[in-house]
């Protein structure tokens, strides 16, 4: 969809502006700025924050004078992909490699918009075997296959 102004760039610019200002403010509040010859820890983050805010502002202004296209935002796919990583991170220490890989594969597969339990089970088992072969057997990491630490 074509819009009169480039709302995508304006939003991106606004976010960068806010991020830059926040970083600059946080650095100046919490770290020593020092002088130009004896710089404190805060000077470089402060100046980078200001630069980021400035570039964000330029992007916003540029977007105001440009036509734009609204980008397509996917909803289901990111939820499944991000969810699969989160599930892995939550399960790897308490439950071990096999449950974590099975669970994250299942969540990731849902992004296909179809649920095929057998296919997911088989691919989860194959991936767990491959993971164990490469990481535990191959390069000798000590990750337990199954454990129960709650």
């Amino acid at each position, binding site marked *: 969809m*074509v819009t009169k102004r480039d709302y*995508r*760039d304006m*939003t*991106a610019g606004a*976010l*960068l502006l806010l*991020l*830059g200002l926040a*970083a600059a403010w*946080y650095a100046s509040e919490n*770290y*020593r700025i020092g*002088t130009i*010859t*004896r*710089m404190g*820890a805060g000077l*470089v*983050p402060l100046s*980078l*924050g200001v630069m*980021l805010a400035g*570039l964000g502002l330029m*992007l916003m202004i*540029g977007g105001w004078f*440009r*036509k*734009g*296209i609204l*980008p397509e935002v*996917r909803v289901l*796919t*990111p939820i499944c*992909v*991000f969810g*699969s*990583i*989160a599930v*892995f*991170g*939550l399960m790897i*220490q308490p439950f071990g490699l096999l449950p*974590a*890989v099975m669970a*994250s*594969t299942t969540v*990731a*597969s849902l*992004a*296909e*918009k179809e649920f095929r339990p057998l296919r997911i089970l088989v*691919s989860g088992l194959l*991936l767990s075997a491959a*993971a164990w072969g490469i*990481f535990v057997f191959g*390069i*000798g*990491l000590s*990750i337990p296959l199954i454990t129960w630490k709650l």
Partner: protein
Amino acid sequence: MDIFANLALGLGTALSPYNLLYCFLGVFLGTIIGVIPGIGVLAAISMLFPITFHLEPTAALIMLAGIWYGTTYGGSTASILLNIPGSPSSAVTCLDGYPMARQGRGGVALLMTTLASFGGASIGIVVLTSFSPMIAKYAIYISSAEYFALMLLGLVAAATITNGSAVKGLAMVVLGLLLATVGMDSQSGAQRFTFGNIELMDGLSIVALAMGLFGVAEIVTSVRRIHPGDVDPKSATWAAMKPTRDDIRRSWVPLFRGAGIGSFFGAMPGTGPSLSAFMAYAVEHRVSRTPERFGKGAIEGVVGPESANNAADQTAFIPTLSLGIPGSPTMALMLGALMIHGINPGPNLISEQPGLFWGLVMSFWIGNLLLLILNIPLIGLWVRLLMVPYRMMYPAILMFICIGAYSVRYSPFDVFTVLGFGMLGYAMRVFSLPPAPLLLGFVLGPLVETHFRRAMIMARGDAMYFLERPFTATVLALTVAVVVWSVWAGLRRRARDKSGLLDQ
């Protein structure tokens, strides 16, 4: 030292069974990744990055480098047979490679790209071997002010030259530099942006950043979009690969021209294999006596770019290894791998680690030979790989990313860092902000800050110090020129484009 003694040392290192194995593994994985659309070279290298922690530094670098130039070989396969670039640097190969495949000459195109790749890479290696030690010899004398200026030029060039919008590129470099300040400040020991979190004291992990920005974000945009192609396996048989005498006559000059273009742009900051391939195509089109054949299956349009992008792959190592300044995000990851093994990149690298440098250079020859063997007789295998559906691949990639991130220090925190950068990476894709400058800023961040602060101490706070040094002043002037040029080019493009919808 004698060049032949160095080459012999390198050959000895590269031919040791341990290094040879990882060289093979690198180019093999690189080819697979290059063939498959939907995983880029950066995602691949960051995925395999954790594995290299457990290797010797030389083997680690040999393997990562193998993946890098291996993808360029593999990338042309999908371009020619499916009209989808397997890697960005092979995008131009689609223009004439795909028409050749439709005319039933796909086999010839595949053979000629492999030969062109080998030729281009060989010339690139010769350039790399001759220039790196020379540059390093002079670079020993340069101080913090010069380093700061060179890195600034590298960052600005990377942010502005190859991206659509200079403002977006620069904003991402600054964001990368800002992310690099997270953790302990190397000069004062103060903790910055850690918010009391112990796991952030060492800074954000480069592995997690690269995996999230390139691996995870790429998967989110590729799921349900990439479909296995209708490929005719017959296009990749021995008989279909035999080039005509006319093909060979037309190919050898573009091969050398492409290699020259690639060698030059590969070594420059901000330009890389993709731009080299585009330039080579443009040049072939311009000098051809029959430009109307281009886009309809002209062999020159395949050979030139493929020779150029492979030459650029090799010469990209010149600034990386002789100065310690990476010109592209991939090279930044190579430096990251070195630093993790406690090796300081810089002009002293070649003299202090001759085994590593010459071993790596000689491994390029071996790797390219292996690729020639892998690509010509085994092409049928790679073509079949194009038929594996993406839905079977992405859960495996995700799993690899998760375990890789976790394995670095057995910390679920690192997995969640990957998740955070994955979200950032997807948001950046939605807003069309380029991730490559961010990675480059992140890797160079600590070095830029250290050299800047050191230079300012030496200058006693006087900014004129930078302009009084001829070398520094020249580099800074070049940096300004790059910015001015890219702003001007952007304005001119917009003026030409009446709809105002460029950069989309």
